[in-house]
């Protein structure tokens, strides 16, 4: 230690470099939110920035990009109509941020949006990221709508500006259970992948089944990275279940289904939306045929064919939640137009009381910010494609054909199987 001065000085230098390094980011930072807040009246049109947050890189980047594309489509369509808010021409702009599905980045990304003074945010994808981020949005007073965070806690925090358009775990879980009930099963085995999403869903299914007097004969757990399910499947087999529910993603659901059939388990397999993809038939092969799974809301093909056509033309196949983020962005825009203001404080009440027909059906929010009376559609895997078989609404399962007959005549063209694209899966939420 004979160079202490250097040490001290280089620390100073390091601090300065750090400051400078951050300073260098300045132009980019300032440039990125190309949108000045609504107050800066530009001659042509006022730009209104809407934030879109999700994992744009990492294991579930395909889902994050899908969400982002949903927002972008909504914004582009809105701009084509040359909207006017508060008597001025406005132009909507999307600012996308990558949260890497990392919980500790959630608040940082939220802060970036708050710094950029965006008018509203669509996101995030994972509940684990959305919940910590929501506190920052709440403090900044920015309305946030998530199109895919299903953890009930998100809206239980009492934040007035936090909404979601997707069904909560405790809305989707009961729906699957009610469908199983309608199949007259007596004994059900339940497993989950020990993630917030899988466990939350499986717990709700268990609760509903038990309440309906159906016996839950086994409650097993695995992990979202496991490949060997034979041990827990063998245990399930010992209880001879009529149906099996697995709370988890297709990445584990597929191999599990395949191994179950190898072991000679003949029960009906059911899943939540995480495994409601065509990927299942790739991972499980023919074993996937006849499996049952659920998705919140109405199948996009039934609710809005125009959305599917427009999305496919621009971004290709829908991965999973794009219809929801599309609706979320449209909700923000609709609320702003209704309130005739882009100021979050002013348009928040009209967002809360909105009544809107979107790509995923009719949307209204309850006091907490959850979707009121959300439908859940049950799908089955047929010839490698996910096709709707039933709609569960208000605790009742109704076959999909019946539902379509009763449903709005405007959705008349019988829905072709809404081929869900095959998202390369991995854990979400």
């Amino acid at each position, binding site marked *: 230690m004979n160079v202490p001065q250097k040490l001290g000085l280089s620390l100073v230098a390091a601090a300065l470099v750090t400051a400078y390094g*951050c300073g260098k980011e300045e132009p980019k930072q300032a440039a990125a939110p190309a949108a000045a807040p609504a107050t800066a009246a530009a001659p042509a049109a006022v730009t209104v920035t809407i934030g879109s947050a999700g994992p744009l890189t990492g294991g579930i980047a395909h889902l994050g990009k899908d969400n982002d594309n949903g927002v972008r489509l909504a914004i582009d369509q809105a701009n084509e109509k040359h909207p006017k808010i508060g008597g001025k021409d406005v132009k909507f702009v999307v600012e996308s941020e990558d949260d890497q599905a990392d919980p500790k980045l959630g608040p940082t990304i939220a802060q*970036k949006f708050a710094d950029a003074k965006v008018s509203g945010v669509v996101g995030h994808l994972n509940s684990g990221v959305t919940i910590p981020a929501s506190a920052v949005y709440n403090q900044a007073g920015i309305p946030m709508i998530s199109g895919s965070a299903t953890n009930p806690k998100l809206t239980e925090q009492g934040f007035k500006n936090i909404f979601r358009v997707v069904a909560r775990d405790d809305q989707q879980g009961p729906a699957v259970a009610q469908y199983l009930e309608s199949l007259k099963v007596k004994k059900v085995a339940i497993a989950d992948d020990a993630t917030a999403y899988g466990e939350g869903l499986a717990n709700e299914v268990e609760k509903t089944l038990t309440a309906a007097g159906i016996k839950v004969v086994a409650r097993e757990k695995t992990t979202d990275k496991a490949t060997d399910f034979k041990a827990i499947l063998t245990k399930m087999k010992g209880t001879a279940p009529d149906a099996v529910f697995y709370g988890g993603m297709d990445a584990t659901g597929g191999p599990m289904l395949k191994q179950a059939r190898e072991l000679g388990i003949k029960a009906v397999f059911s899943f939540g939306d995480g495994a409601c993809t065509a990927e299942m038939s790739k991972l499980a092969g023919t074993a996937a045929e006849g499996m049952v799974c659920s998705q919140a809301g109405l199948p996009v093909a039934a609710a809005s064919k125009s959305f599917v056509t427009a999305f496919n033309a621009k971004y290709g196949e829908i991965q999973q939640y794009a219809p929801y983020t599309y609706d979320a962005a449209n909700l923000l825009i609709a609320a702003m137009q209704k309130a005739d203001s882009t100021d979050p404080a002013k348009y928040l009440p009209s967002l809360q009381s909105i009544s809107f027909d979107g790509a995923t059906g009719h949307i209204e929010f309850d006091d907490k910010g959850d979707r009121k009376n959300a439908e859940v559609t049950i799908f089955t895997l047929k010839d490698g494609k996910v096709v709707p078989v039933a709609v569960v609404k208000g605790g009742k399962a109704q076959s999909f054909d019946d539902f379509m007959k009763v449903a709005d005549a405007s959705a008349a063209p019988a829905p072709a199987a809404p081929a869900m694209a095959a998202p390369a899966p991995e854990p979400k939420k």
Partner: protein
Amino acid sequence: MTALLNLNRRRDPRLAWAGLAVMAIALLVLPFALAGIGTAWVRITNLAILYCFLALGLNIVVGFAGLLDLGYIAFYAVGAYVYALLASPHFNVHLPFWVILPIGAAFACLFGVLLGTPTLKLRGDYLAIVTLGFGEIIRIFLNNLSQPVNITNGAQGVYMIDPFRIGSFSFAKPEVIAGLSFSGPVKYYYILLAFLVASIVINLRLQDSRIGRAWEAIREDEVAARAMGINTRNMKLLAFAMGASFGGIAGGMFSAIQGFISPESFILVESIMVLSMVVLGGMGNVFGVVLGALLLSYIPEVLRYTVGPVQRAMFGRTLIDPEVIRMLLFGFALVLMMLFRPAGIWPSALRKRELESKAA
């Protein structure tokens, strides 16, 4: 800092003082400079400081005592959960942070001893694997302790965790003090900085103390150290316990800043990231470790604004995710550092001598 000064005074005290003063002012003004760019940068800096703190804790175990711990994040998790459970609606307990942080540190310390006791006999590589297993076990338990009695709320995590609060002064709320507006993150910055400075001082003092020298002796040659009359068992336990306590405090702060925690924040990759910080900066050198932690904390943010846009400009789309590049950087940093500069970017003098003479 004082240790540094003691050494400095022998050369030119005035220059050293001046350097320190400049640095102190720079650090005090920094959050306002950052907030000018965007408060998000203050948050990023806060996380970086938190990692510095963690890396310093791991440095005690790995750098000072030479015990490779691959499950260090477990202590961070323990601290975070202690804070979360004692300051959230989960059990409806809301203790103030100055009460919980010591409890968290004590708990983490207890876990450190729990891990240390059975593994004392193990050396190097075995210890590494056992600590890795320990880290995973802790995470699996946190993930599953919602049944049969709900302790940790399992994978769902604990939410609405209280921020740091002294009376009515909350660290989460923006406030105007003496004409300056302090946002939540800026307030946290100062408290984190204070903790970091304290931990740097503790680390420097430790290094020069009897304990520090005993650790050094154990690291160099355990048998010889024992022959010299050092109680190797107690000293190794002490290293585990101290390192773990640092992790516990860091976890508590993370919990408070974040407001929501779940087991997915405490995965193995985090342990490896903290280890990379220590290795990259220079095992055993306090300032090297801080440098390593700062580097690896800011690199992902820098990559975010460079890698993606550059690739899009060159190829029209993103070929390699910034996240993959970050992981590859970690990997190469670990390998190349060991091969070519085993003592780190900023090696401690002694460590350098040791590693280079043996690697010859």
